[in-house]
């Protein structure tokens, strides 16, 4: 710590800038305008999606959950409308995440950080919490005053009301999250009648806690310090990407302006600091594109309001590209260039992965088998002189109804097949037998194969399982073991 102090002093001597900026609380001011209205609309849409999601129903028959979006942990199933995913198919989720990431790359390279500014949950919930704060404690100036004044009944009442409102929203957030993992109507009833499990209450509490902490207290610090996305998004942005831009060629030199003063020889920026006051991350957009800017554009609304008041044209701050900024400065006509190598590559990768995912989904097999050969005993000599191996055969029936499967073993001359669960005698292995498996379940069978002694310690063969209705087939390479002599 002490050496830091020495360094800090040295730095100060040379640059005049302290090494560490202590955190300053941001008090964003409320603002009206088209962008704010758009932001409210997106916020409502996102919240609606989040809260309505678990209440959507989807009929899958009596034996299955009727919730359209459900991750059923105890039953190890995930449901998405007509798609049902088993745990071993989690790569679909990985695929979705990859799609999300590449989609984000594409959108970012085209329009800048609109994900951050409009749809990111951190932004949506921070906005919601700020709205509650503004409703209870008042706008920026009143909030600053409230924080600075000493303890009073009014301050305690307002702070209590604010945190109560925040906690309420937080609990509602955590509650809705848990609904995606449980049947929503049952869960709501259980939660309010105190019949829900400790796990359910625990997770509601956990997500309520993180929501309260991140959206209430941490806010812009999540974007600035915790989130990796602002730090890598510069890789997607080029001079043709739209971003919240301060048109310095119009605004500078800035300065205070009194009514009636001439606008000649000066810029349009009257240094009113409205753009800073409304910024949810508390930055000065006039410093140019920066890491902390989440691209929400609220400063555009604030600045336009001021420009209207002082009678200058709107758009001193606007969504614009860097290239257009340069063009406008020179007096050239601005242009839009959406088709760039970068966007082509992102779009192509996006299409490719989408096609891959769709192919995987449509070709998703509804029958899978796994075969586990007995380890002890490896093989058994029978009284008749032949050798018998035991296997545990598991057939996954991913369809919702009971289906029958014809199983056989190919590649073992003269072998007989016998299934312990079926009280039938052994049948020729190449011909096989038929097994029923309940819908959405794994059928587990003890299968015995009996073959004449061949003198080979290992014989490779195939288990073949064919669904009798659709003819869908799954194969498994297995080994028949026997004595060497």
């Amino acid at each position, binding site marked *: 710590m*002490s050496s830091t102090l020495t360094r800090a002093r040295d730095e*100060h001597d040379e640059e005049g800038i302290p090494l560490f900026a202590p955190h300053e609380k941001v008090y964003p001011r409320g603002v009206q305008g088209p962008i704010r209205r758009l932001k409210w609309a997106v916020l409502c849409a996102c919240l609606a999606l989040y809260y309505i999601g678990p209440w959507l129903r989807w009929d899958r028959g009596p034996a299955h959950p009727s919730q359209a979006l459900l991750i059923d942990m105890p039953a190890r199933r995930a449901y998405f409308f007509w798609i049902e995913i088993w745990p071993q198919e989690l790569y679909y989720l990985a695929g979705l995440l990859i799609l999300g990431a590449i989609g984000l790359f594409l959108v970012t390279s085209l329009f800048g950080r609109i994900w951050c500014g409009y749809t990111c949950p951190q932004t949506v919930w921070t906005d919601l919490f700020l709205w509650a704060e503004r409703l209870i404690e008042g706008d920026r100036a009143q909030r600053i005053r409230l924080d600075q004044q000493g303890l009073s009944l009014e301050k305690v009442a307002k702070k209590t009301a604010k945190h109560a409102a925040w906690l309420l929203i937080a609990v509602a957030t955590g509650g809705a999250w848990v609904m995606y993992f449980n049947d929503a109507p049952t869960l709501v009833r259980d939660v309010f009648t105190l019949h829900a499990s400790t796990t359910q209450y625990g997770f509601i509490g956990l997500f309520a806690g993180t929501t309260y902490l991140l959206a209430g207290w941490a806010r812009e610090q999540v974007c600035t310090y915790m989130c990796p996305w602002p730090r890598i998004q510069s890789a997607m942005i080029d001079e043709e990407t739209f971003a919240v831009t301060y048109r310095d060629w119009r605004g500078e030199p800035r300065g205070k302006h009194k009514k009636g003063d001439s606008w000649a020889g000066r810029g349009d920026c009257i240094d009113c600091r409205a753009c800073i006051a409304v910024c949810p991350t508390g930055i000065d957009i006039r410093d140019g594109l920066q890491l902390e800017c989440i691209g929400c554009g609220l400063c555009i609304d604030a600045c336009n309001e001021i420009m209207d008041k002082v009678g200058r044209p709107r758009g001193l701050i606007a969504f614009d590209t860097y290239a257009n900024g340069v063009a406008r400065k020179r007096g050239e006509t601005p242009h839009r260039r959406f088709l760039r190598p970068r966007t082509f590559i992102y779009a192509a990768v996006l299409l490719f992965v989408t096609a891959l995912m769709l192919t995987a989904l449509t070709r998703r097999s509804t029958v899978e088998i796994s075969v586990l050969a007995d380890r002890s*005993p490896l093989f*058994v000599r*029978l009284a008749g*002189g032949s050798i018998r191996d035991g296997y545990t055969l598991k057939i996954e029936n991913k369809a919702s109804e009971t289906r029958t499967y014809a199983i056989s073993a190919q590649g073992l001359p003269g072998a007989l097949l016998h299934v312990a669960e079926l009280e039938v005698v052994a049948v020729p292995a190449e011909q096989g037998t038929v097994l029923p498996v309940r819908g959405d379940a794994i059928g587990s069978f003890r299968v*015995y194969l009996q073959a004449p002694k061949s003198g080979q310690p290992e014989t490779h063969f195939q288990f073949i399982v064919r669904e009798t209705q659709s003819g869908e087939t799954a194969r498994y390479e297995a080994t028949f073991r026997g004595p060497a002599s």
Partner: protein
Amino acid sequence: MPTKREKDVATVRETTGHEWDGIREFDTPLPRWWLYTFIATIVFAVVYCVLYPSIPLLRTHTEGLLGYTNRTALVASTKAAVAAQAKFIDRIRAASLDDIRKDPELLGFAETGGRAAFNENCAPCHRPGGAGAKGFPNLADDDWLWGGTLAAIQQTITHGIRNADPDSRQSQMPRFGADGILNRQQISDVADYVMTLSHQPAPAESAKRGAAIFAQNCVLCHGEKGTGNQEIGAKNLADGIWLYGGDKATLIQTITYARNSSMPSWGARLDPVTIKMLTIYVHSLGGGQ
């Protein structure tokens, strides 16, 4: 040591006022969240000490208001597990072995319980999965000494073989060599004949002599063709499956000294439900009849 608290020029923050060789130290308080978390852990510790056993005294320890101990927790969870199994256990006690096999739920429970009991009590001799070892029969094949039906298996497990239990399986093979019933040449001849029974190569001359000796001494128990007799545990000599080995040296040893191995009676050690589950499990290993 001078203790002049002052503001640092660069950062405008207080220093502690201590100075070591010109190096001064910021008076930076702990981050508040850190401090509060620390206080919360202290509060947690106090509450924990009150509620749970925690502070060691000289001979004992504080018990805590909740009266929790690992031992009582284990007893409670064991009790809960036993209670959860009770309905299956009761049904298995009441059902016949055939009925258990017909009920998929009971069959699954019995096989699982049987496997656990088998691994604990039987696997040391019979090996996991009933693979068997020299002198300890393989339970997965279709060659049974005393019968492979459910009833026969249950009987064998309950009372054992050749032990002090009055109901145990009893039979005795004579010590043909050691007791002087047959001489060395005769034993060698009969061993050759026994090898031909399971289609192993043996000199025809001596095997022919052995056949006569076999007819006189062995047929009574092992049958005319050496196919054995499960009533008295007489081994099938014709099927190529051997308990001790089918080569000539081992056969001579077996005939000379006899093999009268024993299996404990489990009826006294295991409860009837466990024996039922063991029966079901052993029957399911592949050789059940």
